[in-house]
C-alpha cells in the first residue's frame, strides 16, 4: 500500500488522483472490518470481558477511521499541514475527554454515598 505513496501521477493537476484499485481496496477493507467488529462484539467465543472488547472495538474503529482519513480523504498524499491540523484537533479532543473523565470520576464516591443515603 505504502509503495504507492509517491511516484503516482502528481501531474494530473491540482491534487493527487486516487487509483481505482486503491479506492476499491479501501472500501473492501472497511466492509471486512465492519463485519469483524460485529462478530467480535456479538459472538460468544470472542467475549473477553467488557474492557477488552471495548478496546478491540475501538482499535478496529480507529483502523477504519485511519483508512478513511489517509486514502478517501487523501491525507497521505496531501500537504502534510492538513494532516497536522487534523491531528491537532484529535489531540485537543483527547485532552478534553480525558480531563473530563478524570474530573468527574472524582465526585463519584460522593454521589454514590448520597444515593445510598437517600435509598435508606
Amino acid at each position, binding site marked *: 500500500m505504502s509503495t504507492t505513496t509517491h511516484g503516482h501521477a502528481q501531474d*494530473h*493537476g*491540482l*491534487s493527487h*488522483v*486516487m487509483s*481505482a484499485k486503491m*479506492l*476499491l481496496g*479501501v*472500501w473492501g477493507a*472497511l*466492509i471486512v472490518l*465492519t*463485519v469483524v*467488529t*460485529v462478530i467480535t*462484539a*456479538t459472538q460468544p467465543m470472542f*467475549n473477553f470481558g*467488557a474492557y477488552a*472488547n*471495548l478496546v478491540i*472495538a*475501538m482499535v*478496529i*474503529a480507529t483502523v*477504519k*477511521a485511519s483508512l*478513511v*482519513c489517509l*486514502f*478517501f*480523504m487523501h491525507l497521505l498524499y*496531501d*500537504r502534510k*499541514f*492538513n494532516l497536522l*491540523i*487534523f491531528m*491537532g*484537533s*484529535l489531540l*485537543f*479532543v483527547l485532552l*478534553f*475527554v480525558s480531563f*473530563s*473523565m478524570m474530573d*468527574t*470520576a472524582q465526585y*463519584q464516591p460522593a454521589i454514590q454515598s448520597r*444515593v445510598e443515603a437517600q*435509598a435508606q
Partner: protein
Amino acid sequence: MSTAAAHNHHGEEGHGHDPHLAHHFDSPQQQFDSGKLGIWLFLIQEVLFFSGLFCAYAVYRANHPEIFEFAHRYLDVTLGAVNTAVLICSSLTAAWSVRAAQLGQRKLMIGCIVVTIACAFGFLGIKYVEYAHKFHDGLLWGEKFNPKYAPGGHGEEAGHSPTADAEGHSGQHATAPGATITQEAAGEAKVTTPRNTSIFFSIYFAMTGLHGLHVIAGIIVYVWLLWRALKGEFGPKQYAAIDFAALYWHLVDLVWIYLFPLLYLIR
C-alpha cells in the same frame, strides 16, 4: 468563484484569464490549496463540535457502565451494521466522484454523486425505522423513558401494562424531583431497568440525531453539486467543490464509524 474574475491583472504563468481563478489568488494551485485548508479548518471544528457528545458518552459510560451494558440491547445491531455499510459505500462513491472529476469523466462523476445521495437517503430511511420503533416502545430520553418491555423481549411483557403501573408509581414520588429510581423500585410487575437508564437514550438520540442532521446537510450539499455538475461546471481544472464536499462527507462517515461500536456493540 463562479463569476469570472473580470480583468485579472495578476495573471502569472499565462493563466491570466482563467475564469475560475479569483483575482486574489496567484494561481489555481494556490486557490485550490487555500480552499482545502479552509475545509480542513471547518472539519476540525466539526470534530471538536462532536467531541462534546463523545465526552458526555465517555463520562457516563466510565461512571455507569451498567446502564450501557443493559440499554444497548434495545438497539438492533443488524440495522446499525447495515447503516454502517451504507455509509461506507457512500464514502466510496464520494471519493470516486472526486477521481472522476479529476479525470474529466463527467457521466461517472454525476453517477457517483447520485449514488452518494441515494445512500444518504437510505441511511436516513433505516434511521427512521429505528427511531419509529423507539418512539413506539417508549425508549426515549430523560423523563420520556418508559420502556414497554425488557431488552430482547419483543413486547411480550406488554400484557402487564407497565405503563399504568409506572405512572402510578412516579405519582407517589412526585415530590422528589429526578426520581428516576421509580424504574428500579418497580419490582416484579414491570420492566426493571438500572437507575438512570434513560441517560443512555438521551445520549443515543443526541449523538445519532446530530449525526443525522449532518447527513441531511450532506444531502443538501450533494443535491447542489449535482445541479452544478449537470450544468457542466466541473472538470479536471475545476473540481474543488466536489473534493471539499467529499471531505465533509467522509467526516460524517468517520463519526458514524465510532458511533456504531460505541452505541450498538457494547458487551
